[in-house]
């Protein structure tokens, strides 16, 4: 749904740009194309690996590890799992909801979700290309730290 809106907005913007300046619009498209070509190898590799990971990482398997009473160990495992993968939220959130139903605690689920969205070991190579090693690693480490902190707070509140 949102993708359709996105495409419509971009199409309209392109149209406006085209009428304002054909030349600039062509420049923009050329730039877009070259950026796309640069990005593609990284994304295809990522996609292939995530497909493999996700086919093994279904809800039953994860709930066995992160289930009820998995405690602090569960939190760390959730953290590890989430950090490695970067899953589309479309999959991650329903999975998290299922995990909760199957008995996982809010702590584990929160760490899982936070690290899934903010930390990516798999995307680290790509991030390093854009941001250099130092910054990329710092950001991910900080994200992990705050993920664990968040999970502690959520456990207290929920």
């Amino acid at each position, binding site marked *: 749904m949102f993708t359709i809106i996105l495409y419509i907005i971009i199409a309209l913007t392109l149209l406006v740009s085209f009428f304002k300046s054909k030349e600039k619009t062509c420049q923009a498209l050329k730039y877009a194309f070259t950026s796309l070509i640069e*990005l593609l190898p990284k994304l295809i*590799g990522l996609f292939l690996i995530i497909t493999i990971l996700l086919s093994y990482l279904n809800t039953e398997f994860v709930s066995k590890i992160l289930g009820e009473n998995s405690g602090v160990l569960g939190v760390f495992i959730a953290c590890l799992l989430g950090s490695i993968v*970067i899953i589309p939220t479309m999959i991650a959130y329903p999975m998290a909801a299922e995990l909760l139903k199957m008995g996982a605690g809010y702590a584990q689920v929160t760490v899982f979700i936070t690290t899934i969205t903010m930390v990516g070991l798999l995307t680290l190579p790509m991030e390093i290309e854009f941001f250099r090693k130092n910054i990329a690693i710092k950001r991910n480490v900080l994200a992990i730290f705050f993920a664990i902190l968040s999970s502690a707070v959520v456990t207290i509140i929920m």
Partner: protein
Amino acid sequence: MKKMVYMIKEYSIILLALILYLIIYFLDYDKFKFIISPHDSSFLEMFIVLPPIMILIGLINVWVSKDLMIKLMGENSGMKGSIVAFLLGTVGVGPLYMAFPVAIMFLEKGATFFNIFIFMGAWASIKVTQLLFEMQSLGVKYTLIRLLLNFINIVLTAAIINTSVSENEKRSLSKT
């Protein structure tokens, strides 16, 4: 020679993936069949947002002058700049790594280092599309709590990285 090393790095992940596929093919054929079957449309999502985002980057590159970017999110934009960065992040589409090229583009045009990290943080965890979905799957109360936590998280992370990275390093990013 340098170009070759670069190419190898670029394609090494794809190579690794293909090797894994081969291994799975031989060890667990059923799993292999499952993996390569189109069982999950959500992956199309990953690639489907790519063209529009690339076009957006192209358009921004061509139409948004450095002056405009600096006014919006640059050196002296202060809190207003950060709010702009945050709002831009919330309308993101796709996972965090989609934000990288956009963020770098903002940086090259003159946005501050701090602001682009706010932008990326918002994109990663507080996208509007994501929030709605989270409320649907996990409840409003949980989403709001996490929203607040994420917000604090984003601001603190951006601040910490901003202060702990040297000016030289920040400038070196723009030459990517």
